């Protein structure tokens, strides 16, 4: 079978993803998580008298804990496959990537499994975040005076 014929057949079989629907779902889910974050900060500030800076930290910890728990319980993957970027782009995606890569390699042992693979997916976020922040930071510090 030549390549063009193969592509023709696979194009027919593979279902077309509805980009508009994906976009709307990602917008609504992502926006909802942002809304939850704002609500948590609002409640902490007004009902528990937490300083704003601490309130945002606690909010991030709560979101990470919920995402990790949902990943460990096993139903976060289904949610991600439906909401896609709506759950990957917020900090929940970071926690999901970390927990799922740990839990997937659990059977290979503590060191070679969990330890070696914990940062398999989140490593790129940390690496490129740190490198770009360092380069932008140096440029800002040296040329614009901090």
């Amino acid at each position, binding site marked *: 079978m030549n390549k063009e014929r193969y592509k023709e057949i696979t194009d027919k079989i593979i279902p077309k993803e509805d980009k508009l629907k994906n*976009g709307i779902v990602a917008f609504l889910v992502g926006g909802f998580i942002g809304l939850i974050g704002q609500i948590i900060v609002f409640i902490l500030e007004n009902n528990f008298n937490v300083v704003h800076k601490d309130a945002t930290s606690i909010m991030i910890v709560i979101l990470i804990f919920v995402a990790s728990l949902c990943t460990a319980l096993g139903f976060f993957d289904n949610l991600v496959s439906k909401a896609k970027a709506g759950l990957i782009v917020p900090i929940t995606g970071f926690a999901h990537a970390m927990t799922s890569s740990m839990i997937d390699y659990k059977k290979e042992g503590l060191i070679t499994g969990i330890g070696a693979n914990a940062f398999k997916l989140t490593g790129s976020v940390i690496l490129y975040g740190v490198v770009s922040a360092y380069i932008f930071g140096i440029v800002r510090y040296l040329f614009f005076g901090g």
Partner: protein
Amino acid sequence: MIFLYSFLFCGVVCLIGQIILDNTNLTPGHVTGLFVVVGAFLDSFGLYDKFIKWFGAGTLVPITSFGHSLIHGALAAAEDKGLLGLLGGMFSLTSVGIVAAIVFGFILTMIFKARD
């Protein structure tokens, strides 16, 4: 009103991510990596701080705020200690998120089994 702005900001960032995912061959790993770099870039001109002021805590939820926090902590420490502070302060704001993700992830991995 700040609730609506939070919703809109976080939603729009996710929408941009979804558009990139749908129209290119990039994986979610590429998109999150790209967004962190964009967040760090936006904060190097103080723009992300203005977003936080305008749109509330919804701006701290997307992964772009991770890049923002990295460079923000680094620059704050650089004012005291110069170039050494740029290294030392890098994780001063983001350590909450990273440590929480590591600790919760590990504890929950110990408790639960992988599902197929």
